[in-house]
């Protein structure tokens, strides 16, 4: 059997224990809203939405081995496109549908163009060129948002109204949760599809995938387009939640947010992004509360960067990865091979 078909038959089995955990979490989430403050509910909504942003990055880094430093342009692009359309055409559901359609088309086209240039090389040089070129694309998007003041309000940020059904915090919480569940299922299907298997083969060894006859650039493009679309949808949801867009959303910093979510949780696991997002968001929130104790705690970026560097150095597989490794070790100790 070839390497690829091996990968295909070797689906990562989700253990029953994990399913119970998922169902339990879901149940708790449904019980939380009546019992919690609006702040908590909004924070959780943020986590649900940003988790998909993180997951979309996992498609790239975790499943295909791509470093895209301009990924924020899809997320921020979604938020901005929805925001601009709401503020220009009115906050209605029709406009939302239109925004979704336009955003998906926009991100697919941009991802295609970006990939055409970023995926030219392979190997060591390819990775570096890809990082630099995607960074340039991301900066172009940020620059554009800063320049087009008429539409985006420039550095002040764009405030807008959203359709009535999204204005209720609790309802928004459920929408965000639903969004996360649906997107997770879709993306899970995607990474387990034959296409997803080829992507993983590229991640493991691009040269080999090429020798096996796969057009690796095509599969990387597909990964980028899917990740870009998923990320831009998360951006629209973020618009509905925050009713605000600013150029921070388009910075490298925001790309690194997504990267951190997946790295902390565990790359190549999809679900890791949820855990990572929750961890990072909660940590950020907690530190902000400590601001009263010392001013240093308001410097979130310092902590963010430090966590990030430490995780990359010492926990490259993230929490989920480390847990799986621990499990595997325990298993092998139980039944010595």
């Amino acid at each position: 059997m070839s390497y690829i078909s091996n990968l295909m038959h070797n689906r990562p089995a989700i253990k029953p224990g994990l399913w119970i955990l998922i169902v339990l979490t879901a149940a708790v989430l449904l019980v939380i809203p009546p019992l919690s403050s609006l702040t908590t509910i909004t924070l959780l909504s943020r986590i649900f939405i940003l988790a998909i942003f993180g997951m979309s990055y996992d498609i790239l880094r975790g499943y295909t081995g791509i470093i895209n430093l301009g990924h924020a342009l899809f997320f921020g692009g979604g938020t901005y496109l929805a925001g601009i359309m709401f503020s220009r055409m009115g906050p209605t559901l029709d406009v939302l549908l239109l925004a979704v359609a336009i955003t998906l088309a926009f991100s697919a086209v941009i991802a295609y163009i970006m990939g055409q240039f970023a995926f030219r090389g392979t190997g060591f040089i390819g990775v570096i060129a890809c990082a630099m070129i995607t960074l340039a694309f991301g900066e172009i998007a940020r620059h554009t948002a800063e320049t087009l003041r008429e539409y985006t309000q420039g550095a002040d940020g764009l405030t807008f109204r959203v359709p009535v059904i999204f204005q209720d915090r609790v309802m928004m919480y459920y929408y965000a949760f639903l969004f996360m569940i649906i997107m997770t299922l879709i993306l899970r299907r995607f990474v387990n599809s034959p296409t997803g298997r080829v992507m993983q083969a590229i991640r493991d060894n691009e040269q080999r995938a090429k020798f096996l006859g796969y057009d690796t650039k095509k599969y990387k493009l597909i990964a980028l387009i899917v990740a870009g679309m998923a990320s831009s949808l998360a951006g629209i949801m973020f618009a509905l939640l925050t009713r605000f867009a600013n150029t921070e959303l388009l910075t490298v910093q925001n790309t690194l947010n997504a990267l951190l979510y997946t790295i902390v949780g565990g790359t190549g696991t999809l679900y890791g992004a949820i855990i990572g997002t929750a961890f990072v968001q909660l940590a950020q929130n907690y530190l902000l509360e400590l601001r009263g104790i010392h001013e240093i705690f308001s410097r979130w970026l310092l902590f963010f960067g430090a966590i990030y560097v430490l995780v990359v150095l010492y926990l490259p597989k993230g929490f989920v990865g480390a847990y799986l490794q621990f499990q595997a070790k325990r298993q092998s100790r139980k039944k010595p091979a």
Partner: protein
Amino acid sequence: MHIFIMLLINGLAEGALIFLMAAGLSIILGLLGVVNFTHGTLFIWGGYVSIWIFGLTGSFIIALVAAIVAGFAMGLIFERLFVRPVYGNVTAQILITLGLMIVFTDLVRLLWGPNPIPASRPEFMDGTWVIDSVIISQYRIFLIIVGILVAIAINYIVNKTRVGMVMRAGTQSPDMVQALGINIKVYFSGVFAGGAALAALGGALYVPLVGSVWSGMGINNQILAFIVVILGGMGSYYGSAVGSIIIGLTVAMVSWFYPPLTVYATVLLLLLVLTLRPQGLFGLAVRN
């Protein structure tokens, strides 16, 4: 015609600054195989340290030296603690240097505040010359001279010294260099720190040109430097020099006619070159 002479000088001065960043990036890439995203951060630190020391001593020269020393020291620390553990792992290098970029950019905001700090040019270079009704800024001429001097110095080091021999040899095969009894890690540290010092010098020289220092100035210039590195062919300092001039002139021209288009023009230029010559203008000088 006058405009073109002025734009030429502006472009060359801009190019000289970009070159200070790009040369280090390119050489580090060539020898160590590391892409360094802290370069823009070192650029900012160079700017802030020079302003700080200038405020204390009132001497522009001491301020520049301080920036160079700070850049060198930071480069040494970065290489030792963060880059060395991940040699050979490109992805981890990118991720780690990006993390350092975030931390050290925010540290600047913590130490010097989030707002831009105004800076002036040293008096002895603040003037202009008027030659045949063309106004020439002394400071820009100074930048061009610095750029040329640095290029000559790099050229000398690479081609005429033992350090340069080891660098050229190491670019091809670090293993073989070690197998001849040379401790290449010392050279790795030195080159990384040297590149960092050049970036810091670039920042220190950039601040008087634009009249203020702020924490966002790193990323813009870093992207220009990346564009130059890809344009010139990764790992070739020679390509970096030519690429810097091309990008410098492009920036000067476009920003004269319509400043908001500058970023697009440089990236467009990059994409154009990549389409026509995927390996950059001077080919790859990096082991693949």
